[in-house]
């Protein structure tokens, strides 16, 4: 009786089986990684109608975040400043520079500037800036070194898992209130941070039971 398959068939079959398995594993992991990075658009600068530079204003000029984001301590939204805020300075300074064209146009035509959202949470997530600011979560914990970004990008994935890292163990992240707006603030080494964090959680009445509850962010 003749052979149905050449000797090479054995090796071929074994390798193709092995290869198939490997391929699947790689594919899945690749997709997952791609999903995390690309979908969350981390570290991807976002084009804006006005070439506003945080690096200049918050960085070199050292303007406080709250000058523009004035509701960050009292409201859910930090507030994107109205055009008039830009005009407080730019009616005198750098009048007529092309980068500011958008601002002047808005001011004259009374049409709002259409900023592109950078940190865009899902509609079923209810994030409140004031709650975080008042409990000692620093700006750069989530937004990164904005004072070094010319065009703003997302410094963190802002996925639920990421939020939970802090909501499950706030003591690992919180800082003294007076340091909240200090973008250059460096967390102390793990051990001290834990010690500091625990005391802050105490004094700021951070309810660690509440934080990981669904109803904290979803309604």
């Amino acid at each position, binding site marked *: 009786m003749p052979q*149905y*398959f050449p000797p090479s068939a*054995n090796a071929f079959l074994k390798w193709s089986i092995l290869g198939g398995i490997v391929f699947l594993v790689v594919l899945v992991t690749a997709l997952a990684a791609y999903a995390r990075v690309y979908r969350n658009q981390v570290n991807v600068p976002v084009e804006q109608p006005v070439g506003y530079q945080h690096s200049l204003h918050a960085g070199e000029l050292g303007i406080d975040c709250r000058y523009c984001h004035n509701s960050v301590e009292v409201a859910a939204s930090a507030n994107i400043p109205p055009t008039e805020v830009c005009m407080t300075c730019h009616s005198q300074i750098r009048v007529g520079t092309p980068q500011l064209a958008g601002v002047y146009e808005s001011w004259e035509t009374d049409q709002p500037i259409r900023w592109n959202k950078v940190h865009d949470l899902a509609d079923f997530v209810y994030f409140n800036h004031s709650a975080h600011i008042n409990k000692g979560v620093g700006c750069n914990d989530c937004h990164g070194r904005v004072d070094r970004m010319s065009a703003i990008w997302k410094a963190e994935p802002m*996925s*639920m*898992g990421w939020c939970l890292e802090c909501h499950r163990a706030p003591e690992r992240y919180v800082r003294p209130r007076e340091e909240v707006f200090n973008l250059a603030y460096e967390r102390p080494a793990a051990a001290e941070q834990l010690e500091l964090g625990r005391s802050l959680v105490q004094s700021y009445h951070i309810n660690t039971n509440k934080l990981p509850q669904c109803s904290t962010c979803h309604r």
Partner: protein
Amino acid sequence: MADSRNRIAETDRVIGPGQTYTTIDDTVNKPILTSILGTPIWWFIAFAFGFLLLMLYLYSVVYLIAVGTGVWGNNVPAAWGFPIINFVWWIGIGHAGTLISAALLLFRQEWRTSINRFAEAMTLFAVVCAGLYPILHLGRPWVFYWLVPYPNTYGLFPQFRSPLDWDLFAISTYASVSLLFWFIGLIPDLATLRDRTENKFGKIAYGIASLGWRGSAKHWQRYQRAYLLLAALSFPLVLSVHSTISLDFATSQVPGWNNTIMPPYFVAGAVFAGFAMVLILAIPLRKAFGLENLITMRHLDNSAKVMLATGLIVVYGYVIEVFIAWYSGTVYEQYMIFNRMFGEDYWWAFWALIFCNAVAIQPLWSKRVRNSPLALFIISMIVSVGMWLERFVIVTVTLTREYLPSSWGVFTATRWDWALYIGSFGLFLTLWFMFIRFLPSIATSEMKELAHIHENDDAKEVTT
């Protein structure tokens, strides 16, 4: 030969007279080895019919996903309707196969041999039909994978306390283990086909599928041990699957559902329905492929007996339900039973199922009925309907009458409910007809072993 047939009653034979290794090979493999053109015309018609229904199935699935769960009759309070009924019904049918091959193997019932193969196939196909329902039943089917534990950016796991998640594990385990069991059983027969078929592609296909099986004694040794262990594992698995399904109801709060008898009662019902389906498939099959000598009257007879036995257990379940309701002394349970029997909406369903599952099986006490394939076929059909009605009563009728009278309601199915149900037969039949055409519907190697054991039956006097 002729006189020998007189000596051994037809219903005592697990294998027809004068069956040799070669005859077994040829009878079983004939339909597979014939060329496409040689395929009997009835096969094409039947396959086309199944395929048509399959298209109906796909159409209603797409429509469902496009428009929403609302295309069905489900509502509040009857939040579960046809999909769950059909799910439980199909999964029930999907019990006979593995039970036959596993349990009967362990109990050394050699009459299992010629029916286990296609019964297992039936199991797999039924599980496929069943398994799709819970997914389609979701309000958002496209996120069904949230029931599976996998690393995700939400930092969430499924909620393992939910019987629905138990279902997921139970069904996927059952499906994969049954598939493995079935495939391992197939390997030697695929090798046989590899060696028999003249078709070049056939040789390659069967060759690869049989993994290069060469029937060496060493292989057979491991093979048999593995097969036995798989059987030993499958047996409790079978029992566990429908028990788990029954926990969807038993662990709930709903009067008429939270009942400790549910698991055994469901399992019995499953075997009941399963054997009914085995007969529904076996009787035409043996006729169509002339397998009367391999699937003998003894097989039909025994299946019928199992049906009768499990049927009676189910009836006992009904009785106990009523008793428990009375014994519980709670108004909710008592009203539930009252409503099932005499409630103005659905009393007909209850009495219909009593007829199908309790009355219709009584003729099986008689040997004459058990020896008439036609009678068995009809009774099995009735039983299948009855088991569907049972699930309808348990799922929907119960839900429409719960605790608060203010939220009682009515369930009325829509054309899409029916389309998805009828369509699922398309899925089943398509797979089934593919199977009987391209794979041996009887385990030839096991039959040869059996033939070897029984080769002298006709020679020696048998008195049983």
